[in-house]
């Protein structure tokens, strides 16, 4: 069994984001199709792990998701699950973001499964769909080694100059946190 990491949010007492990391995944495309077809729980996200170099981006994107959920304006996408994926991306274009960070591609072999839980809320359906993922369990601490640095840099448009003063994770979380104010192409 994969070990589940529980992310708690200082700003959202009672809420957690549960996350599991899988490597050597052989059926990512199939799981991606289930998501697109609306056959997975609405609070669940299936994320292409090679674009996520650390837990911090998940935390920031999760925080943003819950803030939107609580706000008058509401979510930008349809579900908590897709909102998390959208927030992880540097793009403001919803479909582009969901495609890029989703797993609907044959060459996606490492996957993060994440789902929100709220304390005391009666669950009609759990968010955990680990059983559907064919792969081997990893620890969230392995995210850095599974990340594709070149692809992360190109998606978020991270320059050598910036990397000379800042870690890759910090460059990524900056763009997630400031997303609403940056240009569509992640601050180009």
């Amino acid at each position, binding site marked *: 069994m994969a070990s589940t990491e529980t992310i708690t949010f*200082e700003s959202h007492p009672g809420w957690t984001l549960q996350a599991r990391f899988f490597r050597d995944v052989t059926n990512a495309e199939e799981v991606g199709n289930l998501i697109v077809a609306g056959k997975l729980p609405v609070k669940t996200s299936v994320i292409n792990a090679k674009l996520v170099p650390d837990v*911090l981006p998940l935390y920031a994107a999760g925080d943003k998701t819950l803030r939107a959920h609580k706000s008058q304006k509401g979510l930008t996408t349809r579900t908590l699950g897709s909102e998390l994926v959208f927030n992880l991306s540097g793009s403001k274009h919803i479909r582009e973001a969901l495609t890029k960070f989703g797993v609907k591609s044959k060459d996606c072999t490492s996957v993060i499964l994440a789902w929100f839980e709220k304390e005391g809320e009666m669950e009609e359906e759990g968010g955990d769909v680990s059983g559907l993922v064919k792969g081997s369990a990893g620890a969230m601490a392995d995210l850095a080694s599974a990340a594709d640095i070149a692809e992360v840099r190109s998606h978020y448009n991270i320059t050598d*100059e910036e990397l000379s*003063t*800042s870690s890759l994770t910090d460059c990524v979380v900056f763009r997630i946190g400031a997303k609403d104010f940056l240009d569509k192409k992640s601050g180009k």
Partner: protein
Amino acid sequence: MTEEEQVVGLVPKCKLVCQGAEGRVFETRYFKRRAILKQRFDKMYRHPILNKKLTRQRLGMEVKGMMKARKLGIRTPTVLLVDTETNSIIMDRVEGITVKDWLRKGKYTEEELGRVLSAIGTQVAAMHDGSLVHGDLTTSNIIVREPSLELTFIDFGLSFNTVAQNGPEDKGVDLYVMERAFLNAHADKPGLFDKALEAYSQKTNQWKSTFNRYSEVRMRGRKRSMVG
């Protein structure tokens, strides 16, 4: 929770460290990190809708300026989250002290002072050559870390991207603001700005046009202070 700790923008345990005319700065934590929460408030005397728009615009100027500076190789805090509901920016808390405090403490060698002033000049030149104008280059808006003397620029709330024909004027004003800030905060130590400007002149590749405008801006400033 102790008395001074409060919830700001949903973030618990915020401790006020700085109360300004346009905003407040708190110390807090964000996902295992020491963080700063900077909240800007709407100025009460403005029209409410315009008010909201302007506050949001300033928030945008701040994070966009930081993003641009980072891309030019300038160290800034890492933005962790922007909350538009409460006009707050949560960012990394930078280790070190402001250049203002560092200069006032005076515990540096001549060589270290030279290094810091020259780094300020060089980094401002890098910003300017990248068309970024900081807008508030005071010694409180630069943090120096010891012992490396690495600099981090903060407070980009007035920063903007200057367009070609306004470049020299905007940069000239930026330098003049910096000169005044050095004079006002460090009147006992003349010549600091000149050292920074010297390094600036060596780094920038637009020295002539910027320097001409800076000199003009300076003259205007002097005339104004003679009249006022």
